[in-house]
């Protein structure tokens, strides 16, 4: 059974290679059998589940997996490491992107021109592959390459609609992410200059040794890394690209961009902070306090901006800025409870925000409405969609029995552990603000009365296809299940946090 042995030994890299392979098969398939593209994209995800299943079984039984690419051992070759943190990200990415893809197979035929449909899956699979690569990579330059792949394909799935807002938003995103990756590459150069290694583990040891000789190099590198990843993850002062990009893109793109792409950069940043930089450095430069302040600003202003939006997708995009603040809050608290909350919020927010964007997409698909004010009385006409939206809204606010409550609880306990009560107040205020912009939509949709009572301009509602409603139902059920039984995902997160701290 050599074939199974090969899969068993190389599943780490096969996971990423299969995504890249399928994505480059798409342009050929598109010319030959146009209708197969969607099926093949789904097949790539199913294949990925096999590899991730194998990986998680091995991580739970044998511990961390170190994979040497091409058989070159670490200081020279590229190394992939699958620990609990990487595994957690792999599971999150594969599950959520699979559900978004199922939804997208119907929604995209409506939103895109037929001739770019096959190419969309190329970009989508490239993006998913690059994110998985970022989750497992343990090498600076490899990280840079995956970041650029993710950036280009993320810009691609925004601009694929090629109307004027999309193209302009995509250009803005491309420019700012070029600044981000530029900063990251420069700081890689600064660290390589003094450490002489590109592998995270070896670089960490080398930097530890020379930290007292070249403190300025390390400080500048840390500053550049922070700027680069904060631009990419859209924390408050550097979030300017996000609202346009996420609101104008096709709905499945918005869902994956808001749900997963901005999260993966926070995870890479977390890895670098704890694995590479020496701990004494944080006495010199209070980077965790800075992250806390930025995340508090992000939580507050993201919510404030979201309140005044009229377009439903734009409101959700601003809400993402507030929610990424929670994840950074978890990183900044730097204790185990807070970090657990932050990582849990990555998973929870990936589910609820993609669900909200997908239900917004379903509303646009069925009725063509984008304005929040026009949604009056729509709830009873589209019960599945508005039901999912309601669960998502409740999870965003953090009502008990939804998953948002659990992660906010952990974050709140984390602020108490760290003795930073101010941030507890921020969490509470933000929850009220979330109420302020999510619940009017829900209340209006179910109890609001349409203005055209005489039925002259009754909203035309298309029937929701099964492939669009099933992902919404699964995500909604997931939000409730992980709100009531959070321990199934906390098993992985707690071990990941143990290994980080």
């Amino acid at each position, binding site marked *: 059974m050599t074939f199974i042995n090969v899969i068993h030994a190389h599943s780490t890299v096969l996971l990423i290679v299969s995504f890249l392979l399928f994505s480059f098969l798409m342009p050929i398939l598109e010319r030959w059998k146009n209708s197969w593209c969607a099926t093949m994209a789904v097949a790539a995800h199913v294949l990925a589940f096999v590899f991730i299943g194998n990986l998680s079984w091995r991580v739970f039984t044998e511990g961390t997996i170190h994979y040497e690419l091409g058989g070159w051992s670490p200081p020279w070759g590229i190394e992939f490491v699958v620990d609990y943190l990487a595994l957690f990200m792999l599971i999150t990415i594969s599950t959520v992107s699979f559900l978004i893809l199922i939804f997208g197979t119907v929604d995209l035929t409506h939103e895109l021109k037929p001739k770019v449909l096959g190419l969309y899956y190329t970009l989508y699979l490239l993006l998913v592959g690059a994110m998985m690569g970022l989750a497992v990579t343990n090498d600076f330059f490899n990280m840079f390459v995956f970041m*650029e792949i993710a950036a280009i394909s993320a810009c691609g799935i925004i601009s694929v609609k090629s109307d004027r807002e999309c*193209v302009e938003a995509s250009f803005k995103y491309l420019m700012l992410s*070029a600044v981000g990756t530029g900063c990251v590459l420069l700081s890689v150069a600064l660290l*390589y200059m003094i450490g002489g290694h590109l592998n995270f583990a070896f670089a960490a040891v080398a930097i530890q040794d020379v930290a007292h000789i070249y403190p300025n190099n390390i400080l500048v590198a840390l500053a550049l890394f922070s700027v680069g990843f904060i631009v990419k993850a859209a924390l408050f002062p550097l979030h300017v690209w996000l609202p346009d990009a996420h609101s104008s893109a096709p709905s499945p793109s918005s869902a994956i961009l808001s749900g997963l792409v901005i999260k993966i950069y926070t995870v890479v940043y977390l890895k670098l902070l704890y694995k590479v930089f020496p701990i004494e450095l944080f006495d010199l430069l209070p980077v965790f306090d800075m992250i806390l302040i930025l995340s508090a600003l992000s939580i507050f202003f993201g919510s404030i901006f979201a309140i005044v939006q009229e377009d439903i997708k734009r409101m959700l995009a601003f809400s993402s800025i507030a929610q990424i603040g929670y994840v950074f809050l978890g990183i900044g608290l730097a204790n185990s409870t807070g970090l657990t909350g932050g990582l849990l919020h990555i998973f929870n927010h990936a589910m609820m925000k993609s669900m909200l964007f997908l239900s917004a997409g379903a509303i646009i698909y069925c009725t063509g409405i984008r304005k929040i004010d026009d949604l009056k009385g729509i709830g009873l006409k589209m019960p599945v969609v508005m039901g999912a939206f309601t669960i998502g809204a409740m999870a965003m606010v953090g009502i008990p029995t939804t998953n948002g409550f659990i992660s906010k609880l952990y974050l709140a306990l984390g602020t108490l552990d760290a003795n930073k009560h101010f941030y507890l107040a921020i969490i509470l205020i933000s929850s009220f603000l979330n109420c302020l912009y999510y619940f009017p939509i829900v209340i209006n949709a179910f109890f609001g009365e349409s203005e055209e009572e005489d039925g002259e301009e009754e909203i035309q509602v298309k029937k929701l296809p099964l492939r669009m409603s099933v992902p919404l139902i699964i995500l909604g059920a997931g939000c409730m299940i992980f709100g009531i039984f959070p321990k199934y995902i906390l098993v992985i997160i707690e071990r990941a946090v143990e290994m980080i701290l």
Partner: protein
Amino acid sequence: MIDFADVAMRLFENMYYLVSVILFVIGFHTMLTHSNLIKKVIGMNIMDTAIFLFFVSTGYVQGGVAPIIEPGVEQAYINPLPTALILTGIVVAVSVTAFALSLVVKIYEHYGTLDAEEIMRIRSTES
């Protein structure tokens, strides 16, 4: 009291780093302050080039030659790794530039202008 001659000497010795930092700032400034979209792309390229120069010069050894080892010859060799990495970096930068320029073409088709402020004005009058 700072010894200016010493500082100048050290700056001269590390000229590659100095020049690349100056280039980086020029590129960054061009990218963020100019409203012409093509100039923004040019600024991005200057910034990338500055980073590449910086990265390559970290591998340079004074008086070193290309690392082709001849038996029996004792020489200082430069570090080939940064050069090899930057080859990849250049390819990435080229593809980003190509994509950015194609987006600029699309923007020009839609708005009829390349000026970012003009585009902002068009968008604000529409909505």
